[in-house]
């Protein structure tokens, strides 16, 4: 029998605001425990929430980008449950009137395009963090994260494989980073997801019983967790058992999902409108303002790179789809670098270095200023492409500026005609046999002379000049 999977994803995206959704405490990552916590975040008696405008604007930007309906009047609800890192005993979220309704995201798996519809996206506050493994008897509570704005993006159950799920999450990731809605840093928890997975007989219209895998925080784990869960459900059904509707956790060490501890009572979140906040109304003018300041989306960027900048298809695709490279590329254009050259270097040598260490450019020692300096040296013939690779690698390792590397290592290209002339004359003089063979028609030997010249100049000779002078000398 063949089975098909039905998957819906709830992505939780931390918005890159400076302050929290309902307080003006900092959201900075990595602060000492419980230092980014103010009276509101600590949920002390008597405190009240106040709404962060920027969080709304970011949510709206996302909504506009996926062609969703923006609920210009939205309100917050309380979701009531007890957990030690949930200070108030309720989470402020949007149940009844979310800010974003509908919309869609396009994915591409193995060359096949597919539309994934979005049900809704709503704003809510994140909880704090519980640390369970640092103390033998206690769980430790850090409220720094409590109140950080989240956009929860809920997809329709239209995803049919783990691969599609990953493609969908990557598409979301691309959107939120390009829109500056989130830093998208998955290792810091800026994007995580819950997956609702069920299976049914191929072609069936009925939905099977679903399980929810909670809190998956990398693309790789999304794929593995969903694949495991699909296989598990097939095994259960084929052995004649039933799927239990439950919440499961993915254990990346054992590569399996397992049920969370079940409680005697089902949770009942008792949603009701948050009486401490009035409805939030976004005006038409504000929506217009957001539209006018809309960041360029990857698909539009690519068209511009192809048409206006004459980049190759491959370069345009990579530079338009990776936020970090795209930012650097745009800066290089702004500082007057040649677009094609800059693209070639970013997609080529720079990416190769980054890929080797599996890091993003902002995590490396490279930045736009440094790369621009390197490219300028190539363009004005101070160094050759070959030397440039050496310089880049040195800069990548040490963070030194290209100029200082070129200077200290004496890598400046020899562009002095007289100097080259005398070096090349020596080479011609020292190889009479090869000269004769060349003159008798063995054209390939020209490469031999170039090689000798590079060796003699330690690669610093300007290749064009060497070609020109050699041809003159050998023609004599």
């Amino acid at each position: 029998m063949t089975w098909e999977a039905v998957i819906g994803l709830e992505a939780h995206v931390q918005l890159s605001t400076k302050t929290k959704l309902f307080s003006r405490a900092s959201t900075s990552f990595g602060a000492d425990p419980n230092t980014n916590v103010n009276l509101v975040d600590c949920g002390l008696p008597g405190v009240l929430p106040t709404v962060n405008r920027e969080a709304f604007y970011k949510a709206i930007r996302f909504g506009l980008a996926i062609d969703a309906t923006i609920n210009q009047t939205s309100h917050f609800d309380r979701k009531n449950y007890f957990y030690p890192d949930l200070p108030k005993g309720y989470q402020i979220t949007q149940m009844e009137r979310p800010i974003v309704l509908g919309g869609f995201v396009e994915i591409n798996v193995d060359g096949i395009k597919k539309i994934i519809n979005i049900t809704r996206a709503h704003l809510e506050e994140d909880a704090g963090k519980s640390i369970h493994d640092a103390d033998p008897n206690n769980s430790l509570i850090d409220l720094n994260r409590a109140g950080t704005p989240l956009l929860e993006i809920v997809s329709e159950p239209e995803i049919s494989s783990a691969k599609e799920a990953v493609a969908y999450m990557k598409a979301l990731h691309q959107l939120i980073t390009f829109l500056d809605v989130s830093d998208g840093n998955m290792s810091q928890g800026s994007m995580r997801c819950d997956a609702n997975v069920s299976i049914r007989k191929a072609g069936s219209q009925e939905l099977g019983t679903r399980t929810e895998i909670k809190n998956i925080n990398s693309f790789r784990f999304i794929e593995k967790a969903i694949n495991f869960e699909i296989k598990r459900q097939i095994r259960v059904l084929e052995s004649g058992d039933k799927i239990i509707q439950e919440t499961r956790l993915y254990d990346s060490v054992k590569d399996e999902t397992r049920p969370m501890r079940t409680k005697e009572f089902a949770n009942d979140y008792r949603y009701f409108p948050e009486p401490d906040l009035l409805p939030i109304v976004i005006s038409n003018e504000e929506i217009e303002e957001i539209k006018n300041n809309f960041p360029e989306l990857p698909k539009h960027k690519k068209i511009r790179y192809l048409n206006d900048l004459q980049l190759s298809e491959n370069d345009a695709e990579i530079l338009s789809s990776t936020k970090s490279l795209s930012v650097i590329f745009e800066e290089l254009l702004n500082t007057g670098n040649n677009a094609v050259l800059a693209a070639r270097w970013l997609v080529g040598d720079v990416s190769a270095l980054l890929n080797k260490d599996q890091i993003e450019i902002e995590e490396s020692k490279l930045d736009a200023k440094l790369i621009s300096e390197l490219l300028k040296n190539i363009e004005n013939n101070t160094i050759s492409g070959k030397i440039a690779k050496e310089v880049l690698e040195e800069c990548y390792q040490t963070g030194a500026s290209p100029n200082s590397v070129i200077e200290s290592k004496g890598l400046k290209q020899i562009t002095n005609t007289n100097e080259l002339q005398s070096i090349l004359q020596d080479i011609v003089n020292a190889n009479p046999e090869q000269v004769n063979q060349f003159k008798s028609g063995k054209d390939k030997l020209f490469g031999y002379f170039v090689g000798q010249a590079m060796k003699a100049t330690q690669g610093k000779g300007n290749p064009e000049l060497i070609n020109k002078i050699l041809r003159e000398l050998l023609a004599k």
Partner: protein
Amino acid sequence: MLANKEITPSELTEESISLAKRYASLNCFNVINEEAAIAQSRNLSFDSNNLLSCIPIAHKDLFCIKDLETTCSSKILEGYKPPYTATVVKNLENAGCITIAKTNMDEFAMGSSNETSYFGNVHNPWLKNHVPGGSSGGAAASVASGIVPLATGTDTGGSIRQPAALCNLTGLKPTYGRISRWGMIAFASSLDQAGPIAHTAKDCAIALDAMTGHDSKDSTSLHLGKTTTLETLEKHTSLTLGIVKEFNGQLSAEMELAFQKSIMTYQSLGYKIKEITLPNIKYSVPTYYVIAPAECSSNLSRFDGVRFGFRSKNIQNLEDLYVKSRSEGFGNEVKRRILIGTYVLSAGYYDAYYKKAQQVRRLIAEDFNSAFKECDLILTPTSPGTTFAFDSKGSKDPTELYLEDLFTIAANLAGIPAISVPQAFVNNLPSGHQLIGPHLSESAILQTAHHFQLNSDWHLKSPSMESFL
């Protein structure tokens, strides 16, 4: 007296504190702010342009004051010292008030007799072993006994007005949103409103003008500046007062007589009396007992023994931490209301109870809107009776006590201002009538109450206090 230099600010503060100690058996205070108040009074110089300058004040023990114990009269907050101060307290201190104590109250403001306090009952200064009303019972007792001239209270369903009536005081519940709720520990967020309790409408006006004003820390705070009710206090015009048809026959003969005397006083001052109808008013008590518990069940979830307040000693695991801390920390009335609130919000009951109540709330609010087309203010009794003996009401049937708020609750549901004004005594005990006005009509309410007080002397009577020495 301050103005005539008959007494210095620190003498006044010390006098107030010594009275508080003398009448300790009233049990109207949870904590006396002795050292800080005396230090503050020595540093302050009297400002004759400022009517609240150096005036001793007592705050209901649900207003957070930095480093001063704030308990809501609950075991769960025993010993809790907030790291910040409520906006109301700051506003009053900026106006010159000196905080001398925190007043006893019903636990988390849930009650109408001050009998649910973890720290014991407060006596009515007019009659020992009788209730001062609630939930701002300590506040009313502290003013009625003459310890302080002014106290803050909060009113969720009548918690300022009813104790004011039972203690022969004037108590104002302003329009919802007039006074910041920042730092005021919430009972029911959409109903709670702070206000003053004092002897006269004039004192209430002075206090109100200091307490009000927009606060950016409270999203439900109105976008309005401070009130200026004192300026307009004397500009009373003879308004039309509505008498609620549906309240006919709800009072004992003696209470009815006292209320009729008030009506006659107003008539003699030129006020027109007109019967009006509030067709849905009879649903205000059930509506309130859905909405208030629902909001409180959620508001009180933060008392979980994790970050502050009481934690049970006897815990093995996280469930214990929650269940034991909360069950040992909260009293029975609070538990009852949390349970009711949880029930009306739970799956399957939300529409039938919570949403339904909010719909009826709109009908009640619309009834008021219609009524205010017929009259300027509405005149009602404040409570069905006078003070009653400890443990005499509600011990068998909790709803018996809930009916204490019959006349007061609707103003909270609609968010409109109302005041309780002392009127003729009934069997030698204080009683009050209530003036309810449309949104933002505090000036008219205070003018009218003031006008009444210029022509009556009930508010001037004070209890003997002998039985509390």
